[in-house]
């Protein structure tokens, strides 16, 4: 869906994502379209609510960037404390994935070939391809 409007304030969570979540939560229930629309808009409000609260909490702390901690405190103060356990679980997963990633990329670096050498090889390969491509062009089949 091309966004031609460019108006920031029309942003919402994609309808398809909401539909999917509703379907997973209420598997055999039909949901009216205007109800779905309302859910989409409620999500927008929810996000604004949490961000705003987290932002305030952040401002009061000595940090400039909203952290997960701020968000968790926001959830608590807004009455969504019941979400915190699951949110924390997912945060943990997130950190684990990040950790694996960092390990993976450092493993890659430890292949033994220094990056400069790999880059040089890459440039060589590109040059070869270019050479071959140019070669192809000069033998134009249609003369």
């Amino acid at each position, binding site marked *: 869906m091309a966004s031609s409007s460019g108006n*920031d*304030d029309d*942003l919402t*969570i*994609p309808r398809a*994502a*909401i539909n*999917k*979540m509703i379907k997973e*939560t*209420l598997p055999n*229930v*039909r949901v*009216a379209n*205007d*109800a779905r629309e*309302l*859910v989409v*808009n*409620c*999500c927008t409000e*929810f*996000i*604004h609510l*949490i*961000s*705003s609260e*987290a*932002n305030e909490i*952040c*401002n009061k702390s000595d940090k*400039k*960037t*909203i*952290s*997960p901690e*701020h*968000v*968790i405190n926001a959830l608590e103060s*807004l*009455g*969504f404390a019941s*979400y915190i356990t*699951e*949110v924390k679980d*997912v*945060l943990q997963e*997130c*950190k684990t*994935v*990040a*950790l694996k*990633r960092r390990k993976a*990329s450092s493993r*890659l670096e430890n292949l033994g070939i220094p*990056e400069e050498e*790999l*880059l040089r090889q*890459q440039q060589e390969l*590109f040059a070869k391809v270019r050479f071959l491509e140019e070669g192809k062009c000069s033998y134009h089949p249609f003369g």
Partner: protein
Amino acid sequence: MAAAVEAPVPAEQDSALCGSEGETRGAEVEEKSQPQTGSTGPAVSHSRLSKLPLARIKALMKTDPDVSLASQESVFIIAKATELFVEMIAKDALVYAQQGKRKTLQRKDLDNAIEAVDEFAFLEGTLD
């Protein structure tokens, strides 16, 4: 697309939008440069950990001029909280539909849920 060996391709344009503290780069889970259909922002596809597009959530957060920078992980958990919110409100609304002996969830069921639940008070007046 040439698979350069230089750094895994994080969506740099993405961490530029939000503050990137050292630990948050790692939180850019699954950020390959896949184009995401329907996304207005940079090509950050949702990771397998989140059902909602992180870029969109970030964009929504930024429409509030007061909101400062947010770490990727924060955006992430806001995404998760939003998922939980949808679950919660849908289930609450279902109760009203069932009371009305209907099999179709209607807008008014959501309205009832919003009115009944304190935490949803912020939603009163949404989409009037």
